[in-house]
């Protein structure tokens, strides 16, 4: 259910010459994903929608300290690390979204700072017969592609005040300090194997 809220907004990002509303972009993506899931579309199609929304590379590099630092920490296995993390996020999302069936999402508003925006949502669902809510914010950046077209992409998710980006950065930093990039990649591989086994 949480994953539904976190990653359930995949869609083809809005292409435009100037930044459109991040809220509208996110809402459009989310409804598109919900429609695909409802229509039992193929995994490839859903993945494509999600990949267009989530900036895996940016998330992976931010988890290692950002563009200026990450290369020192993951070299020479940076591409491998980024691919594994992207796969892990995607797998987690797909696993969760297929389990989700009764959640509702409210769009509370957005806060814009230059080319960044925070879209606030509230996810309501039932767990063990009790109604529960989660406040989830999506940190979206307006990025311009090589073709000169811009779009909103999600680069961080803040769940009830807990930043995914900060948590990744601390945890990965701790693993890198103790086990190095090999240890981190090994852990990501193990986790992906666990998910595959569970499926």
């Amino acid at each position, binding site marked *: 259910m949480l994953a539904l809220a976190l990653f359930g907004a995949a869609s083809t990002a809005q292409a435009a010459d100037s930044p459109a509303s991040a809220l509208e972009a996110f809402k459009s993506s989310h409804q598109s994903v919900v429609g695909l899931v409802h229509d039992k579309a193929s995994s490839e199609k859903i993945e494509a929608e999600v990949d267009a929304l989530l900036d895996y590379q940016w998330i992976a*590099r931010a988890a290692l*300290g950002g563009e*200026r630092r990450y290369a020192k920490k993951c070299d020479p296995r940076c591409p491998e690390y980024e691919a594994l993390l992207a796969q892990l996020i995607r797998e987690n999302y797909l696993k969760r979204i297929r389990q989700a069936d009764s959640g509702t999402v409210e769009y509370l508003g957005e806060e814009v*700072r230059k080319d960044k925006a925070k879209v606030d949502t509230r996810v309501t669902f039932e767990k063990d017969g009790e109604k529960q809510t989660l406040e989830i914010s999506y940190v979206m950046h307006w990025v311009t592609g090589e073709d000169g077209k811009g779009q909103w992409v999600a680069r961080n998710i*803040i769940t009830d005040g807990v930043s995914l980006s*900060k948590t990744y*950065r*601390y945890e*990965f930093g701790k693993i890198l300090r103790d086990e190095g990039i090999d240890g981190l990649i090994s852990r990501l591989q193990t986790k992906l194997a666990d998910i595959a086994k569970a499926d």
Partner: protein
Amino acid sequence: MLRASSLCVLLGAGLLSPVVDAAPPPVAAPSAPEDTPTPRRASAFDAVADGRLDPYGRRPADVSRLGLDQIVRYALENPAVKSADEQVTAMRAQLRKAQFAWVPVIETSATLSPGVNIRCDDVNLDDGSGDGFDFQYCRSRDDNSFDVNTIDGYFAQLADAGVRFEFRADMVIPITTFGKIRNTRKLAEVGVALKELEKGQVEQETVLRVQQAYAALLLARDTVGILREAKGIVDKAQRRIEAEVGGGDDDWDADPSEGDSLRDPDDLIKVKLAAIELEQLMRQALNVESYALSALWALAGDAAPPGFDVKASKLRPMAIEGGLQRPADYKQMAVARRPEARMASAAVKAREFQEKLARSNFLPDLGIAVQTGIARSNAVDQDMSQLYYQDGFNWTRFSAALAMRWRWDFHFKTFDLQTARANTRAAMRQEEAAALLLGLDVQQAYGDLVEAKHLVDTYDEAVDLSWRLVVSGQQKDSVGGGNATELLRNLEKWYKRRFDYAQAIFSYNDALARLSRAVGTQLGRETGPTAP
């Protein structure tokens, strides 16, 4: 009354923060939003008393500040003590009454009423011997036209009856009461002594309460001080962590390359939780402080400056006059000086005098009964010179006689004596029991005092050692080592030891106050800069 246990609960839950660079306490509350109904809504760390009569929060600068001795002096003038003093005065009046019981009481009565009209004539009756004999003929004014001894006759002559006046005075001058007056006086003397001891009891109880409230107030103040230091360190830690992991909820657009990747984001949550806990503890500490201060105001009474504060700013162990003695010495002191012990002895004496009084009640009272009186009726002939007339209208009398009064209700007196004897024996047993209980009081207070002294010394060392852990943690933190959990844990230890130390001093002073109360004399003396 504040108890030590309540303060243990107050701070026992855990103080989570370091102390090194405690922020200076704020001097005034921040301006509250307009919709804030009371200052209590603001942070407890910024609470300021709403005037000198509000005990909650930082005290105004212009209030009077009193030492313990001054507060005790005011408290000894409070209504409870004055009431006890007035009871002594009342009992002294009873004693004076008993002392003057030998003075005869003169009972007088006087009447003024309508009289009768009687006139008399001298009559010489010739009996044939030539000498005859004199006779006096008395009758109503109208020559016996009516009889004054009948109701009709009395009222018939009332218009001419004139006025009758009569005065009588009686008294008994005691010769001996066989001990009744003396025993009553002795009983009253013991009564005065008992009331004076009761007053002493009230005074000592008042002093004990003042000392306990005073110590509780200073303990609360120490706690407030500790919490302020803790808040300063938590705030500092929060600022540092925010700089390292970002400012929390409002830094969602922060650059991920900034900050320390080895700083756990949860550290920020931990210090924020610590700040909330400190806020709650601070409110509790301020409540305890306000209760203790209110108690001091109530004990000091209206004579004390309104809304006064205490001079001392820190809780210190009180000094013992002459050093700590042996328990046996304090027990002897208690028997000799404690009001309750002396009251028990006085009660035995009172019962003994009551028994003697019950014995003397079997015997009569002897005295000289003196009576005097005069009666005059202006319409009655006063020249009733013949012996065979009983003049009930105009007379003057004086008599003195040896008199005795003796009630022969010996069966009741026997029961009264049995009761008095039993009461005497009961009082003796109570005196013995009081001696034992006083000894127990002394022993308990003495034991608590010795234990608290040990704790004071122990925690003093513990504070020192736990502080070293804090310094060590900060040193590690300054070079990127350590973590918030370890730092907060060490700080918690240090603050707990600091509070334990303050609590031990409070327990020590409380035990000393109770020992003083148990032995009936003040043993403690305030120490430190504010001591007299």
